[in-house]
């Protein structure tokens, strides 16, 4: 094994426009974000010789039109165009972080010099996430006959057990939700820019699948996030402040055999991923001063705080109550507003924020930090995590 240890750097980052339903097709948003990330790195599209993404449409029963419902590497290669590709990768499960880890490894191994990584998500008009299952086989035989085909309900289950096992309540999580939206309110890229909410707004929000309400789910948006990676040596020649990849891991496999996700299965896989990351990075929780934990569903950061060892298991809902994870605290958490505040962008609100905080580019919401933890995805369905550093 040869850990990355700052041999690779992120040198460019960008978002496209982000909105509930934008007029531009997703293909245009992906071109916008990727071109901006390349320009941010002081490069041109002709310099890009590697590309990596997680392409899947962002919802159940989505269409499959390239450039509309999803944006594949094939689409971007021919449309941007990227004439000098030598390496490409599409991961089958995960988020932008998992595909970034592949790009980090490709750059470190010399498969390419400048890799572009992106995640593009489309939110069509009409209801989001309606499950329509007409015929089932496999694991679905034991779920769909009970009306358990909806994603929110599937993810509500581990949280129900967490609450019962440790005594966590919606009141506890309200602290995180309100703070997240306060962070988003300071982020001009966020779908919820300048729209904070109160604890009562959260507690009154309509239930989808108990114990998850509407405000426990990230907001579906049209948008794209993108970053560019290269070697730390090449980064020296670019007119940018590089952010170094101190360590990284792409994992997220289920070790338990069960018809549903369980809290214990989540934690088992999450802890496996966390220990692998700390080993790879050669650092530990005490070295981190900025946290970016995936909040596609609101309770995920609680479990990750525990899995990464920032607090003991079963205590994160209490750990988040004081100012520790606020912007002025020792461990500011999701300063971008996360997925709940920025929009459903599969890890970009964690990744791009970490890069820009470490570069000191976050304006009103800038925090003091030098080493940032980025995690996005489900430990049971593909997950990528990185330690990023301002200094090499």
């Amino acid at each position, binding site marked *: 094994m040869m850990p990355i240890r700052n041999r690779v750097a992120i040198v460019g980052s960008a978002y496209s426009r982000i909105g509930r339903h934008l007029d531009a097709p997703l293909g245009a948003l992906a071109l916008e974000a990727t071109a901006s990330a390349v320009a941010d790195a002081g490069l041109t599209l002709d310099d890009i010789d590697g590309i990596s993404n997680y392409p899947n449409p962002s919802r159940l029963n989505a269409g499959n039109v390239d450039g509309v419902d999803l944006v594949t590497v094939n689409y971007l290669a021919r449309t941007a165009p990227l004439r000098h590709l030598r390496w490409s990768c599409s991961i089958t499960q995960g988020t932008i972080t998992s595909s970034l880890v592949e790009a980090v490894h490709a750059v470190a191994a010399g498969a390419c010099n400048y890799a572009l990584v992106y995640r593009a998500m489309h939110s069509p008009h009409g209801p989001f996430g309606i499950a329509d299952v007409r015929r089932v086989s496999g694991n679905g035989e034991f779920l769909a006959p009970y*009306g358990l*085909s909806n994603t929110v309900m599937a993810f509500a289950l581990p949280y129900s057990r967490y609450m019962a096992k440790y005594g966590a309540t919606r009141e506890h999580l309200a602290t995180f939700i309100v703070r997240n939206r306060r962070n988003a309110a300071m982020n001009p890229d966020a779908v919820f820019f300048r729209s904070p909410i109160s604890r009562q707004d959260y507690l009154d929000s309509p239930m989808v699948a108990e114990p998850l309400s509407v405000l426990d789910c990230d907001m579906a948006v049209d948008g794209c996030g993108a970053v560019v990676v290269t070697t730390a040596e090449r980064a020296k020649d670019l007119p940018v402040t590089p952010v170094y990849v101190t360590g990284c891991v792409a994992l997220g496999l289920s070790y338990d055999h069960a018809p*549903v996700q369980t809290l214990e299965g989540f934690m088992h896989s999450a802890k496996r991923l966390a220990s692998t990351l700390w080993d790879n990075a050669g650092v530990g929780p005490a070295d981190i001063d900025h946290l970016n934990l995936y909040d596609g569903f609101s309770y995920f950061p609680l479990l990750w705080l525990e899995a990464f060892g920032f607090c003991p298991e079963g205590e994160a809902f209490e750990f988040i109550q004081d100012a520790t994870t606020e912007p002025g605290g020792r461990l500011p958490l999701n300063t971008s507003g996360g997925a709940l505040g920025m929009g459903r962008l599969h890890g970009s609100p964690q990744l791009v924020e970490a890069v820009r905080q470490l570069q000191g580019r976050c304006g009103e919401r800038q925090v003091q930090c030098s080493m940032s933890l980025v995690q996005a995805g489900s430990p049971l369905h593909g997950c990528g995590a990185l330690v990023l550093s301002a200094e090499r």
Partner: protein
Amino acid sequence: MAVPIAGIRRPALDPSPLSAPFWAAAARGELAIQACTGCSKMHHPPVPVCPDCHGTAFDFAVVAGTGAIYECSVMRQARVVGFEAMVPYACVVVELDEQPGLLVVGNLLGAPVEAARVGSAVRVHFEPYGQGDLQLPQFVLVAGAKAR
């Protein structure tokens, strides 16, 4: 295609060779779980290879159908086509008494959805599926039982 039961349209079920014994038992009103003949470990959903001993020979063992709610959720919105008339409905994940971590899913029937709580004791109850003679294992609260 399955026919509606009380306004619910369940998906058509297409059992595989692996799952067919489970559904055949359910049609007889029995909850039967795949058990490895090599190491006796029970698995649900059924597996082709035992993850514990890598054996490939299995029986289906009729279990008591009793257990405790391990995880649960109440669907409050019409977000699953075919199940609109059932909203609100409770889905419960039941840990069967026979083996720690052996989980089976059902709806909680015969009680208000608010009664779906982690730890509550339940037992299996079969209802018609709406497709041939198929029956669906469901769960009801065990009256007077203490939650675990």
